[in-house]
């Protein structure tokens, strides 16, 4: 489904040149649950941004569903973000002015598909947030906010969910709850690529890719 080949990302030039990703290649198949690990600065988050078209790569290819997406212009990338790839961020990235339910519905506002209200409520209820639907992010705990973000990611039924340190700002209990949710969705056939530096989190994935200095150092299937 997703093919990454020879992906290289270089920041700056000359003295300040930093090679964030150096010839990284791997595949994500439908139903995969991959954790990308590595020390900070190893290029994990860059990899995730590059996969999802949030950042441009220096060289290499990203092919999603048979379509090359690394060289798409902004307007085509918008289509990718509306249903093919969804994100879950470490900082949740919810809009502060909207309630939980409205945040979940935000992608629908932009993609223009209607009648997702029931689905949004259903997702929130699955996240155990049925009663918190009309709360704003600042009235929710970190764990709750991240669950809202997951519901938002799933509202348009993406092919692939990219999660950047989703448990990074959470205590153990909330983190575990979140990983349970991921596991459950994966079991339902959803594909997930998750960046984490947390061993326990990574251990829940089906496969672990360890990045070091912008290169794949190790791949563990479990």
């Amino acid at each position, binding site marked *: 489904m997703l093919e990454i080949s020879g992906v290289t990302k270089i920041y700056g030039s000359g003295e300040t040149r930093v090679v964030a990703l150096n010839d990284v290649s791997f595949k994500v198949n439908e139903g995969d649950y991959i954790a990308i690990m590595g020390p900070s600065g190893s290029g994990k988050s860059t990899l995730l941004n590059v996969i999802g078209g949030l950042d441009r790569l220096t060289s290499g290819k990203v092919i999603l569903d048979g379509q090359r997406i690394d060289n798409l212009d902004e307007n085509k990338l918008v289509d990718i973000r509306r249903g093919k790839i969804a994100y879950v961020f470490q900082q949740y990235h919810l809009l*502060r002015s909207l309630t939980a339910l409205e945040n979940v519905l935000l992608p629908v506002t932009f993609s223009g598909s209607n009648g997702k209200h029931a689905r949004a409520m259903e997702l929130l209820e699955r996240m155990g947030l049925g009663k918190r639907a009309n709360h704003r992010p600042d009235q929710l705990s970190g764990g709750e906010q991240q669950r809202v973000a997951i519901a938002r990611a799933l509202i348009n039924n993406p092919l692939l969910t990219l999660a950047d340190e989703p448990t990074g700002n959470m205590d153990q209990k909330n983190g575990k709850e979140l990983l349970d949710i991921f596991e459950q969705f994966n079991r339902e056939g959803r594909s997930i690529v998750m960046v984490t530096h947390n061993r326990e989190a990574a251990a829940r994935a089906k496969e672990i890719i360890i990045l070091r200095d912008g290169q794949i150092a190790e791949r563990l299937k479990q």
Partner: protein
Amino acid sequence: MKLYQVVLKDILRRKRRVMYAILGVVIGTMTVVSILTVSAAGQARITNQLEKYGANLSVMPAVKTIDTGLGDLSLGTVNLGDNYIAEDKLPLMRQITDAKIREYLKDVPEGNIATVAPKLFVNSEIKGATVVAVGIDPQEQFKVNTWWQVNKGDYLGSADHALLGSMAAASLKLNVGDTIQLNGRTLTVAGILADTGAGDDYQIFVPLATLQEAFSKQGLVSSVDIRALCNGCPVEIIAGAINENISGVRAVAVKQIANSEMGMLEKINKFMLALAGVSLVVGGFGVFNTLLTSINERLKDIGIMRAVGASRGQIIKALIYEAIVLGIAGGLLGYGAGTLLAYAIGPLIFEGTTVSFVARYLPLSIAIAMSIALLATLYPAMRATRVKVADSFRSL
């Protein structure tokens, strides 16, 4: 949930920030509205004063004036031709004047527009002194000589009434109720005019028909004052038309004073507008700065929206919605504040002016506010959407 709802919710959350931006818009529009309102009040005042200049057309008999002299030595002038205008030419004068005004001003009501006031001058003797008796059409003349005030007694009411200029009354020692003999006709002094500082003070006024009869000048008048009841009426054109169509008369436009006064006002207006323009630019720059900051502060929110599927166009649209809110709010408040400011400073600039709000500046104010808000939004908005989504998260 529609995009505009997302925008409104965001505005409600950021009330204070949004108020700052609105304030910037208000400062710009307020200045323009107050300047325009004060200016309009000034114009109204000057126009009002100009109307007191009375007639703006004067029609005389077409007499040829010949300078007589020997070399550089002037021996005075000699008038040739008829000294009177036939009264039956008056309706035609009115007709020509009204037609020209109608041509010039689109929607004027039916009926007579111009005031046509005939005058007959006769030298006469009262109590042994020579005075100029002036036959007038009481109603029309009062409309032309707007400065006339009856000091004592009443205005001309019947055929055997006379109205005295203040100096004439004083020097002839006449008072209201006295009778005078005018070429054998007995008249009662109905009223005495207040000082005008003009020739009027030395004259006595009687109804035209009475004077014509008394001096056997039936159907004759000496001159006609025409007052086109509008400012900027084409008096030169009217004068030209009268000269062309009526023989034996010479119409002259008396517009010079009005022209120079209006020219002055125009200069003041231009200066004020330049001032308004400068304050608009300054205000606009302030708004631009506020919005630049405000949009940069929200780069992360913009990144979030793009990460969940917003296109560049949708982001710009959202920011334009916000600009529209700023424009409407800024325009309304700016109009209110500007009008209040005009009420406060108007009387200081044009002494004795009564400022009144000008309703049509409200849409103008909103239009200006909207333009400022939109112009100030466009660049930051375009810039914000060029930031890569990943960078917009990193910047915080």
